[in-house]
Structure formats: C-alpha cells, structure tokens
C-alpha cells in the first residue's frame, strides 16, 4: 500500500494514479456519465417558439414580447387577479394562486400554488399567453424561469395608490381592453379625489398602524400602506425612515396615537381581539385602546387592487366622521350624526 506520491500539486488535475487498481473502472464510469448528461443537457435547452406580435414594456422596465391576442393568462399575484376580475376579463384567467379572494359567486379557478413558490410545471401546462407577476410579491427567480421557458411575463410594480391606478390601465392595455381599464381607473380616481376633497383642510389623525403586534412592527413613511393612510387622512405616530420598523410599546405610549389600526388577516385581528388589548400591559395604557378607538381594516390596504379604494374610503370615514357627515347632514347646532 505504501507508495510515493507525486511531488507537486499536479495530482489535482491528474486525478487517477495508475497504482490504485480500483481507479480505472470507476474512472470509466465517471467518464461515461458526462457524455450521457451532456447530451441530455443540450437537449434540455428550451427552444422558444414565439409567434411574436407585440413588444410591450412592463412596469419594471423589461421588454416583453406578447402575442397579438392574449386569450389565456395566469396571475401569480392575488392583487392582479382582483384587478382582472374588476376589468371583467375573468374568462381569460387560466390560473391563479393560493390566498386569492375571488369575488363572491365567481367560478373557482385552478391554482398554481403559493405566489412565492408556484409550480412552474402547472403554469407551463396551462399554456398561458401571458403571466402576470407583482414585483413586490413574486420572486425574481420565478420570472426568470418562466421567461426561459418562452412564456412572456409581465411584471406590475405599483407602490402607491396613484401607481395602482396606472397599473390597472397598463394591465388593461396589455390585454387589449384599454377602454375598460380607463373606465375603471377613472372611476376609482374620482372616488379617491372625492375623499381628498372631503379631507381638505382637515388635520390628519396620528395613528399607530399595527403590521404585527408581537413584536410590535409598524409601517414607515415609504410603504404602500403609508400612502394609503395619507389618502385616508392619517399619519403614523412613529416617524422612522425604515419601511417596517420594530418599535417599543413604550414609545407608542409616549406618543399616544389618536387611533390604533389593525389589519384583518395579518394579525388575526378581529373586533374581539381588539377588545383583548384593553387587558394587555402597555396596550391598556394607550388612550386610543381605553377609549375604544381601535379600527380593524381589511388587508386590502396593503394590496394594489381596486379594493384599496374601498379601504381608503372606509378608513377615512372612520377616522374623520365629521368630514363625511357634513355633506349628508350639514352641521346644525354643532352636532354630528353617526
């Protein structure tokens, strides 16, 4: 067994010593394997067959080649799916993801899995003309994999309510229903403008928006939620540049927000849950909690879809009842009716 090894590191590149009599059979096997694999790998390079018709630029600046007429789409983002329903193009939807709330009464659609790890196979098998993703939800790898298969991917990327409206127009234009998109966006825009008009001159409420209650995580000024809050006449009591700051309850107690806002599904919050806050240390020291100014809003507040405008309207009404009551029942004697 004893033998002299070569003096240099050449052994790294000349793997097999003639003296090791077991080496050669294994070497032969190892040498055969790559030949087979190389053939398979070469065959696996997808050859995209494009019946190219249009080139569009998506919302993150990618150039996407899409067929002239789009008959089948897969939406990998629940908010885009909602938009597609609102546009009335549900007949084109071939696949959606888990966690999508379809409109009441809508026929079920096949799911391709969760937005973060969808089944690429399912998507491919649905033969979509186009796949919609959301830049803030889906993974870059998913987009790349689909593009490699020759499936066009259109990325939406709205970060504010205004951009959500623009995105609705974009999606409609890609699908060839620009008129429906324009109509929907204009309607939503009018409702947003109406809220803004009501709140003109009204001081925004200082709120604590609870993204997560333990540990307490709230929203910074640069997020989609912060933009929605501004539309609804609210501003976070926590002024930190970070997007999702983790803050201490002490700081919140010191700031004493006017209102506490919880989201329906994120924290599992319900009106009952809101009431339990009254018994919890720290929380019970908040005037807003003691006096019942705890609002539970739909998680659509974090979703760039038409439902966002509903949430903004509801929230604005809850936070500023005076501004909204004024139109239906003009102030007489300084009393508002709720």
């Amino acid at each position, binding site marked *: 067994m004893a033998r002299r090894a070569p003096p240099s590191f050449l052994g790294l590149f000349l793997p097999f010593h003639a003296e090791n009599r077991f080496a050669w059979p294994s070497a032969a096997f190892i040498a055969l394997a790559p030949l087979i*694999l190389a053939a398979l790998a070469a065959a696996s390079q997808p050859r995209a067959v494009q019946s190219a018709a249009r080139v569009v630029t998506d919302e993150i600046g990618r150039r996407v080649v899409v067929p002239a007429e789009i008959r089948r789409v897969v939406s990998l983002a629940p908010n885009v799916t909602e938009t597609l329903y609102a546009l009335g193009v549900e007949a084109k939807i071939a696949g959606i993801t888990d966690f999508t709330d379809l409109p009441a009464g809508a026929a079920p659609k096949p799911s391709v899995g969760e937005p973060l790890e969808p089944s690429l196979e399912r998507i*491919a098998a649905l033969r979509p003309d186009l796949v919609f993703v959301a830049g803030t939800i889906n993974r*870059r790898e998913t987009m790349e994999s689909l593009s490699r298969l020759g499936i066009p991917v259109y990325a939406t990327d709205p970060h504010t309510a205004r951009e959500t409206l623009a995105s609705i127009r974009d999606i409609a234009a890609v699908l060839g229903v620009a008129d429906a998109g324009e109509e929907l966006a204009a309607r939503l825009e009018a409702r947003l403008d109406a809220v803004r008009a009501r709140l003109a001159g009204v001081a925004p409420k200082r709120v604590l928006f609870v993204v997560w209650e333990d540990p307490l995580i709230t929203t910074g000024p640069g997020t989609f939620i912060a933009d929605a809050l501004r539309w609804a006449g609210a501003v976070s009591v926590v002024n930190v540049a970070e997007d999702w700051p983790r803050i201490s309850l002490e700081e919140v107690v010191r700031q004493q927000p006017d209102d506490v806002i919880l989201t329906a599904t994120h924290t599992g919050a319900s009106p009952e849950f809101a009431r339990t806050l009254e018994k919890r240390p720290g929380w019970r020291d908040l005037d807003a909690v003691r006096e019942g100014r705890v609002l539970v809003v739909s998680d659509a507040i974090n979703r760039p879809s038409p439902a966002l405008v509903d949430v903004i309207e509801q929230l604005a009404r809850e936070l500023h009842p005076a501004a909204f009551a004024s139109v239906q029942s003009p102030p007489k004697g300084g009393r508002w009716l709720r």
Partner: protein
Amino acid sequence: MAPLTLRRVVSVTLLLALVLVGVAVVSLRLGAVSISTHGLGSCLVAAASGRTEYVTTDCRMIVLGLRLPRMLLALLVGGALSVAGAGFQALLRNPLADPYVLGVSSGAALGAIFALLAQPRTSLATMGAAFAGALLTVAAVYFLGRRGGQLDSFTLLLAGVITASFFSAVIMFLLASLPGRDLRGMAFWLMGDLSSPLPVRLAWLFLVTLLAMGAVYSTSADLNLLAGGEQEAMHLGVNVGRVKVVVYLAGSLLTALAVSVSGAIGYIGLLVPHVMRMLFGSDYRLLIPASALGGAIALIIADTLARTVVAPTELPVGAMTAIAGAPVFIYLLRRRMG
C-alpha cells in the same frame, strides 16, 4: 467488511448507478403534471436525437425545460456535497464534519447578500458573488488553519468553525438591513433551493465537479491510511501534507460550486457518506464513488418530494433534507448498533 475487491467496487458502483437511473426516471415522471413513462421515453429519445418535431409542448416545457435541468442539478449538487463531506470527514478525522463545517456556506451566503445589497441584481451576480465569497473563505480558513507551514487538521477545524460563526453574525446583521423583498429571496437561498434558474451552462458545472471529485478520489488510498493517524500514514509513505491540501481544496471547490448554485442544502454532505460507510464499508476507494452516486440519489429523491408533497406549491429542498435527514440517520445508526 471483507477486503475490497475490484469486483465489489464495480458491482456496488453499477448497483448504485442503476438505482440512480431508476430514481431519475421516477423524478422526471412525477410532479404537479403527471407524465407517463412511455411519454417520457419518447420525449427524451426525440429530444436526444434532435427530432424536435416529435417533441410535444408538455415535453419541451415541463420535462426538458423544468424537470430535467432541475434533476441534473440535484444530481450534481448531491454528488458534490457528499464527496466533499466524505473528504472532510477523512481530512478532519471527525465524523461530524460536513461540507459546511469549514465556513464555506457562510462565506457564500455573505457574498450573496453583498450582491443583493448592491445593484443591479441578476442571478449571475448573486451566484458569482456567492462563489467568490466561498473561495475567499476557503483561502482565509486555509491560511488560518496552518501551523508550522503545514495544514493542521484541528487548527483547520477550529479556524473553519470560528470563521463560520463570525460570518453568520455578519449575515444576521446584514439581514436586518435588507428590505423585505430581498429577504424573501435570501430566505430561500439560505434554506437551499434548486428551483432557481442557472445563469451558466450545466455542462461547465459538471466538468468542474467531476475534476474536483476526481482529485478527491485520487487521494482515496492515502485517506484510508490517514484514518489510522497522520504519523502512521507518514511512516507508510503517504505525503500527508499534499493529501490534506488536495482534499481541502477540492472539497471546498465542490462545496463552493454546490452552495453558489443552490444555497446551503443541509444534511446530504453529513449523512450520505455515513450511510454509504454503513452499507459498503469505510474503504475510501469505494466510499467516494458510492458517496457521489448516493448523494445524487438522495438529493434527487429529496427534491422530487419537495416538488410533490404539497403540490402545486413547491418547498425549498433544504427544508426537505433537514426534516428527513435527522430521523433517517438515527434509524440507520440504531439499526446498525442493534
């Protein structure tokens, strides 16, 4: 175990190769969309012989576009991690050694995070940075692990463990500063995931991997002697210093490649060499090829499960190996002792 004979090396290698082919066929058939063995066979034959007109769309997209590249990547990564694990266990004379014990995965993760923090983000940048991070760690640990100009097993182990824990601390710090959308990608990466598309040709990875495996294999007769102690091996004529450098560099290269294409997939590199040792004895001339094939088999099975157990959603394969790894290991250990 009976002494190793050429017949046994060939028969065990062929047996494992047959199992590998069987597992590969099952893996190509199973998934969110099921494909018959006949359909799979005609698809592969048509693709390999270049008759693209006989390749169906399902075959082109799902088998050739998605499953085959992923299966080949699992084969490659599983083999690489297992050979690296077997090599490190021999080099460090420590049964707990795995490919990550010397800090390679932490270095790669650190590189990937830096790439994510820097713009623009492409998968080539992430993979390249991960590979560079892994190689830099390998170099740092190599110089830290020398004593008196020689690579010292115990100094090397300590240097690797310390480097890994230091990098982990830096990673935790950086993760806290990553925006949410990048965190998601990073979380998948840290868990180990084979679904991300490769920015480089698979064939190159195969070539480098096989060279590095060959380098480890070239030392297998010496590793047998090294198991009895460094002094003893030296007296038997083994150039211990050279063997250690070759195993360290080749093992690290294998790990760096695996980690940079798939993230840190746990347990394969620790478990497979031990299982192979229990099944076929601890002669490295058989153990290394057996580990290469066994690792490929194990990771293909794990990835097939990851794709199918909660279909259509896909799990990161690292979650699968971590869940299945420990119980399988304990079972085998108890059975062998009992």
